[in-house]
């Protein structure tokens, strides 16, 4: 592949979106692979575009997020409760390997992209995700809201990102369960630290808890979503306290 000089960070996101031809992919929200278009990074081809090209007219999708954790010994009760509350489906487990890439530009904050691949589902596309800064509206919004762009890609995503100038910052393995309720997605997973970089077999659990995430990806401006999330979170108390956790506070 031709070596691509890393573009300037400021205009980067728009450039990247143009290249990648974003079709928002509801990742892991129920097998709607029909609506997902995979961009082949090898041949740099995308299927013929029948709708308007993406030149900044994307719908701004926002991710609404609530997080909590549950200790290992209470996992079973949480799973039972979720099976009761959520949509009726076969319990879905997942084993994912996520790598976080940073692009350092001249500006202060590096550009972060998250690449995720499924380790137990053969043939599933890689998932590239951009998450913006959390919006500090701080009204009665009960959930953390941030801009979100999801893209499904082919397998040589990491090569592509390295050529673009990204460097991997950290990686981890996530193993757990997935539930859905309407547009809400609930993930209960354990984070494993990778001891030998690149080797996903040598892992160790980061803590004795499972992380519980309740998230919704919805177009911007639908704050009613956060009310629904809060109501759902109430149902999980006192097993888990799902709340809006600002990552900057934990730095």
């Amino acid at each position, binding site marked *: 592949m031709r070596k691509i000089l890393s573009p300037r960070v400021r205009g980067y996101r728009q450039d990247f979106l143009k290249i990648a031809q974003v079709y928002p992919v509801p990742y892991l929200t129920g097998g709607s692979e029909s609506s997902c278009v995979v961009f082949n990074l090898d041949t740099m081809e995308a299927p013929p575009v029948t709708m308007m090209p993406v030149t900044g007219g994307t719908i701004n999708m926002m991710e609404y997020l609530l997080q909590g954790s549950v200790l290992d010994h209470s996992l079973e*009760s949480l799973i039972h409760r979720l099976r009761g509350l959520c949509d009726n489906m076969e319990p879905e487990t997942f084993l994912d390997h996520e790598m976080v890439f940073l692009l350092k530009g001249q500006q202060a904050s590096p550009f972060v992209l998250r690449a995720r691949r499924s380790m137990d589902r053969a043939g599933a596309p890689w998932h590239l995700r951009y998450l913006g800064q959390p919006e500090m509206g701080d009204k009665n919004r009960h959930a953390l809201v941030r801009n979100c762009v999801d893209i499904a890609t082919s397998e040589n995503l990491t090569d592509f990102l390295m050529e673009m100038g990204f460097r991997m*910052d950290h990686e981890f393995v996530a193993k757990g369960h997935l539930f859905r309720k309407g547009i809400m997605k609930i993930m209960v997973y354990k984070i494993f*630290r990778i001891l030998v970089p690149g080797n996903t077999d040598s892992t160790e659990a980061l803590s004795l808890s499972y*992380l519980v995430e309740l998230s919704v990806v919805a177009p911007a401006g639908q704050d009613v979503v956060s009310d629904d999330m809060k109501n759902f979170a109430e149902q999980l108390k006192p097993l888990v306290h799902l709340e809006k956790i600002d990552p900057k506070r934990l730095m």
Partner: protein
Amino acid sequence: NTLNKVLKHEKTPLFRNQVIIPLVLSPDRDEDLMRQTEGRVPVFSHEVVPDHLRTKPDPEVEEQEKQLTTDAARIGADAAQKQIQSLNKMCSNLLEKISKEERESESGGLRPNKQTFNPTDTNALVAAVAFGKGLSNWRPSGSSGPGQPGQPGAGTILAGTSGLQQVQMAGAPSQQQPMLSGVQMAQAGQPGKMPSGIKTNIKSASMHPYQR
């Protein structure tokens, strides 16, 4: 409190040695008496006398009291003191235990349920997912002085997450076999961090050359 003072005065005679005998009893209503007793004793008749003019306890009660006093005297002063002390000690212990139990039972009743999650773990996990805290291998964030740029193998210096940690660079895994080309780099304390990181870095950087 004058009543108590009068009663406890050393010159007041012991009431049980004396007998009060009414001189005049009448079944008529006495207004003066009513006023003086604030309406409590309307009639000074024979019914009132046993209650109000009594100086000694009932005969049975008097018997029991006499018995108790003889028993107490029989034990002897020292033994009595010891018994008093041990009783006091036991009472205070019991009180302590009860109050502690009461205090803890409110939170203790919830505690077995509450241990379904651990807030520290929550924060650790969220930090790990958000910016990789605890995932960048083997060295936790420590030194607060600016690090030195190492020799990058790839040619670009990476400023990773906040905290001056050593970041392991891995080559991108090729399709089937992950390769291990790790290059260890020290992280430079550059202004290439999040804004909050910038402030701390500037602070530590300005302290460093002048204080050493």
